[in-house]
């Protein structure tokens, strides 16, 4: 399965990080810093 890198932001502590995910695989996320589950997937900037 194809892997892609997503940028994530913890909505509790503001920590931003990247994670490799397999496309189509939905996994529980938690912030590596504060363990919060409020992890927002940041949109990739559009390619010109």
């Amino acid at each position, binding site marked *: 399965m194809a892997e892609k890198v997503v940028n994530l932001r913890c*909505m*509790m502590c503001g920590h931003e990080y990247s994670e490799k995910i397999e496309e189509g695989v*939905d996994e529980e996320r938690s912030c590596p810093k504060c363990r*919060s*589950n*409020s*992890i*927002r997937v940041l949109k990739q900037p559009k390619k010109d």
Partner: protein
Amino acid sequence: MTYSEVDEVEGYIGNFTVKIRKKARYVDPNLCNACGECAKVCPVIMPDEYQMGLGSRKAVYIPFPQAVPSVYVMNMEDCLGNQPIACGKCFEVCDQQAINYDDTDLIVTREVGAVIVAIGLDVYDPTELDEYGYTRFENVITSMEFERLICAGGPTGGHFVRPGDHQRPKRIGFIQCVGSRNPKVGRPYCSNICCMNTIKDTLLLADHYPDVENTVFYQDIRAFGKSFEDMFQRSKEAGTRYVRGLPGDIEEDPKTGNLIITAENTTTGKLERHEFEMVVLSVGVIPPKDRDKLSSLFTLSKTSDGFFMESHPKLKPIDAPTRGVYFAGFCEAPKDIKDSVCQAGMAASRVGALLNAGKVKIEAITCRIDEEACTKCGVCAKVCPYGAIVWEKGQVATVIEAACAGCGNCGAACQFGAITMRHFTDDQLTAQVRAILHEDPQEKVFVFACNWCSYSGGDMAGIGRMAYPSTNRVVRTMCSARVSEEMVLEAFRCGAPVVLVSGCHYADCHYINANRQTVRRVQRLWDKLEKAGVRPERLQLEWISAAEGQKFARVMKQMEELRQTVTADEIKHGMEALKPKPKKARKKKEEEVAAPAT
């Protein structure tokens, strides 16, 4: 129906339609008398899967001695060919004329009221653990291979010999937890059966060959069943030595083929060096390969270990989340024969009770579709984890109430208010939101909590007398997926400084995977809030299990701290910015209604 696979499943509790593929045997089971003449003349020799590759079989064979029916089957992938017939020897010698090269798979349809899933297990393959040299040293075998070697029906006729030189080994080492309790290889769970299997093997060896010296390397011996401790003691009395500590690696003496193990005995704290003539890797068990197919056929969910998840670990350990489907044996979790037999008996009695009743009782929290309001978009059917909503393009959706579990996911997904969740209607939940935030909303932490986990986590925090701020106000829903975007927005419109949506952890979701929709909704809400100029951090998402009272308390403290950072201006701005904008279509409709009849 043996040598068959389930291809398709439709329907719901009491009314399943199952399509079963009866695989082509190429041997007519009604004619075959298992004389074995076909196998005798078959020129193909393949490794025998049942004998773990330690023996051989022909292309036409009986898969294992206890096969039912006891008739031959031809593996067409191994056969020299039937299009055109390349050999045909089996056909020539079969007096019964049972060989049929033109046999094809047959699809059989059956109407059934309930389904028992009992697809068993697979065994961990230790090839990735290079330190144990399973692929390098002939005399390192797995516990499954040991079973075949010591079995009277095995490839050596029960004469226990080591594969390297076919001599009987006199010093045997057993290594426990190979592929179990090992997060490094993605198998953190205990396989449950390996300790007792090894103890049984040592007793078997001591009984057959009293001169054999056995040594078992282990982390913990888990002998917790009836008479298991007695067996463990008997094994020790029979001379088996138990060393607490797992070896780091295995070396081979190239001259003798013996295996040298160095391990720290954690009981004495000393490094020990042992030489064995054979090493047995006590391999763990893994979920069966076919589970993904069945998982999608019956909408079953899996635990983080990959085994099927039961409806409730304590109260419904036999039931799948999909009603009318039951588990028996290993597919649900590692368990020994006795537990598997117990579970199978329970599953059979559950099915018996269901079928004898002839009708099912459902909880009064199922969904109802308003046919007039339904726009036939089909979103509800797509998000239903149970497949309880039937929809075809251009048709109004309908609910199979016997299959609906009442998670409310469809109600939250429907943008047109066409779905009513009994006892958890939009109006009821919105009224709760408004009532809670009617007075001093700026001083409240607003929480949506799912019934099964988060709400119970709050109970656990209370029972444990864990201190947390008293500012939270909780609205209970059956599942976090019942919380619609509109409900969250309404809370902000009513002046809530912060909102928490909380539910079960992914692996614990009581509605198969409904909480994945919660995540998608919260993601969309963060985007919406940001677009409206509202700080998205004011909306939080947490997974809190029923046992996580401490987490509940911690999250409430964090939410309170967050609340204190929200200013009155922010709240006011949010209340204004999130006001619903009149939709064009709705506006037009309103104008039509307002226009005088001509």
